[in-house]
């Protein structure tokens, strides 16, 4: 105990709770929660999902896979975060989203994550952006083969060290929440968004448009799938939110910002986001994955 007190003494001014035994329980104090082994900074992750109020099934799927290490030559912190929002009659939506999430996770685990553990310092794996693009294309083929008529959005984030590489098709979104503002870093592949970009619709008209859910790109649909792939530095001290339109289409960006910044842990934030979406009517399935990055 004394040893712990000594170790944490410089930080105790920051924490509200004087109880040193709270170290390792992230829910109590958010700042305390960052300092794991020997002061190594680590991410915190939360997830939330709900069928919503109006729908009878949940056609959304999510997956989170993270890893951290410590030691003399620690591995970079890594994580795989996937959200898929399925569509199509009967059970096609549920199966399409589940199949695509699994396919992309398997492909990335084999191609990228397993390589992280490789001790040879001369790694020969393909660039991450190419692996991610191929993984999403494989997910597309899997849905085409296994779920005729089915489709899904698919938004994947791969965290490696301090860089986030994103693969995206559809109208689920990734938000970077940093410095008191929210920024959508993905592009909605909906016709309505395209028309809004062209100035043919105002944002208000786009929000209420009867065909706002019509997509021009989706996994499992169309012959030539084009995946948006990009890499950004992780928002240090900020958040990354991946969510389906059951969340962003219903809860405003300022409300999302308030909920995310107001929670002491991303898990509480996700639960609150889902509550807010349902309180606003819950017209669609709701999915959220929230990552909080330590300050740099």
């Amino acid at each position, binding site marked *: 105990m004394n040893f712990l007190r000594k170790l944490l003494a410089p930080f105790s001014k920051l924490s509200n709770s004087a109880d040193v035994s709270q170290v390792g329980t992230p829910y109590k104090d958010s700042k305390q929660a960052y300092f794991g082994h020997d002061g190594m900074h680590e991410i915190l992750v939360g997830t939330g999902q709900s069928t919503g109020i109006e729908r009878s099934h949940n056609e959304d799927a999510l997956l989170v896979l993270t890893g951290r290490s410590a030691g003399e030559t620690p591995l970079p912190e890594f994580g795989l975060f996937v959200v898929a*929002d399925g569509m199509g*009659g009967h059970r096609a939506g549920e199966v399409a989203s589940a199949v695509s999430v699994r396919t992309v996770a398997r492909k990335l685990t084999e191609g990228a994550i397993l390589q992280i553990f490789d001790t040879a310092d001369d790694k020969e794996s393909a660039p991450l952006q190419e692996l991610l693009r191929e993984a999403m294309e494989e997910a597309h083929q899997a849905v085409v083969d296994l779920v005729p008529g089915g489709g899904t959005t698919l938004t994947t984030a791969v965290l490696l*060290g301090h*860089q986030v590489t994103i693969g995206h098709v559809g109208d689920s979104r990734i938000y970077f929440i940093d410095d008191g503002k929210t920024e959508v870093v993905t592009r909605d592949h909906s016709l309505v968004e*395209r028309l809004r970009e062209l100035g043919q619709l105002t944002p208000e008209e786009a929000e209420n448009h009867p*065909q706002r859910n*019509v*997509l*021009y790109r*989706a996994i499992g649909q169309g012959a030539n799938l084009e995946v948006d792939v990009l890499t950004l530095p992780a928002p240090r001290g900020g958040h990354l939110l991946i969510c389906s339109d059951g969340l962003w289409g219903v809860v405003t960006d300022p409300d999302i910002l308030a909920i995310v910044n107001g929670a002491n842990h991303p898990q509480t934030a996700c639960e609150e986001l889902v509550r807010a979406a349902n309180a606003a009517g819950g017209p669609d399935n709701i999915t959220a994955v929230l990552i909080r990055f330590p300050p740099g």
Partner: protein
Amino acid sequence: MRRTTRPLGDQPDSDGLEKLQPGITLQERYLILGMLGSGGMSSVYKGRDLHFPNVTRLVAIKEMVNLIADQSMYEMVVRNFEREADLLATLSHPSIPTIYDNFTHKNRSYLVMEHIDGDDLEAILSETGGPISEERVVSWAIELCDVMSYLHHQHPEPVIFRDIKPSNVMIDHHNHVRLIDFGIARVFQSGQKGTMIGTEGYSPPEQYRGEASPAGDIYALGATIHHLLSGRDPRIEPPFSFAERSITDINPLVSPELEIVVNRALEYDPKDRYASASNMKEALISTAKRTGLLSKPSVAAVIAHSDKIEELWSFECEDEIRGTPLIYEGQVFVGCYDNNLYALDEKTGEFKWKYAAEGGITGKPAAEDGVLFVGSEDQRLHAIAANRGTLVWTYYTEGPIRSSPSVSDGHVFVGADDTRLHVVNMINGRRAWRVQASAPIWSSPLVMDERVYFGCESGDFYCYDFKAEMKWRKKVKRAITSSPLLVDGMVYVGAKDWTLYALESENGWQVWRFRMGGPTMSTPTYAEGKIFIGCGDKNIYAIDARHARESWRFETDHQVTGSPLVHEDSLYCGSVDGGLYCLDIRSGRLRWKFHTGGPITGSPVVSDNVIIFGSTDHKVYALIA
């Protein structure tokens, strides 16, 4: 009432998507020879009509397999098919293939048509690998307008093709246009949540409302022509974004008159397009007549001539200047192949002093605290007082030094042909530490955040910390002669294997790579979200750093070995063709070109709005930006 047929041969009774194999005969009449193409629910086979046993009468057999589970939608697809078949039976136009027969078996429907010997435009585009000449495109476009006009004037209802795109247009061996696929397998499912309506890039905006009109066909024709002339596939771009890709920007050989015709066909509002296909045809014909008379310049318009560029001063040395100058404390320092380091006045170019090494100087000098550091082929790193050119100290390596030194944290970092990276105390010239690479190091080390990054001639790239411990290493197949760039946690470095690599700086993970048309020795530069780099394939590239996509490229007349410089909204870069180019950073358009008497292999530098660079014509130039 549909005729149904007896199942024949080995064709299994199946409801799946199995394709017909060669050797199967349909209707005891059509022998399947092979597959011509397929997609989704439909396939096209090459067949032979056995009712003409003495000759080979080829036919094209279109098959549609109706897999729709929903009953009313299934029936709708069947009705669509019948309607299209009936329509084709009544049409007669040289661009429309003749239909001979149609039949249905279980959930498969067939159309037997004239076989066309030729290629569709999608195949022609992929074979050509780029834009197609205006001459060919205009002749095809005129024929397409002609058949559109014919279809739109049918009675009682105009026939809207609804699906004009390169894969639906064939060019036969007489170079005539043939429309194929009158929508046999097309199904519209509008309105449901998340439904894709297959806007494949060529369809007009009003199609998402389910509206089909002659103006829609005109848009789709415009989209097809745009693809042919620009080489850019609209299916991989956001929909309705043709205005963002000006044809003449991408392909300067296209006449502006033709671009105007295409843009009108692509107007967002149907009312703003050509009122009829025949109007568009007239516009195309008059374009063809006019441009046939004009001779086109082969290069995009240059905004200013090089004799209007203001040369502030120039200075002649005794041999080639291969490297990059340094501007420091009012002076310009440049190494020359005559073994000297020259010091010139920054404002006037007046000679101040020169320092003689015993070997050529090809690198860029570094400076700190009034001392210059420069390597030479005489195997030494020289530390020289900047004000008078007097020697402060020399440090010996075991091979020529071609790399440019970097100064950081009180030390000078430099690579040498002796395959080592040397880290030398700035004040006294004593070695602090050194590490071994696998080959000579020509690239300049990048020092940032207590890490050193450098590549070597074997293709190995290293990251070391200040304790001389290797943090990571990346191997590529050819030499890394250029220096790396580090921005936002990512290291960007080019190699002679024709590739620009983007590596995550902590662990060396390859995040993306961009392939160019030749080896590169150019160090990349970053500005406005883009990476700029020169290449041995004569191009200067601008690459979006997030998406790893080419934003633009500019072709010079010879290799680009130096590195580009960004200053305000211009990019400056020299080429082995002897020119210093000034390009607009956003579009890559040429602003001006300044000619020198020999290849430019180094990079320009800037101070106070003056661009300074050296050339192998022995001169150092200072130009007003």
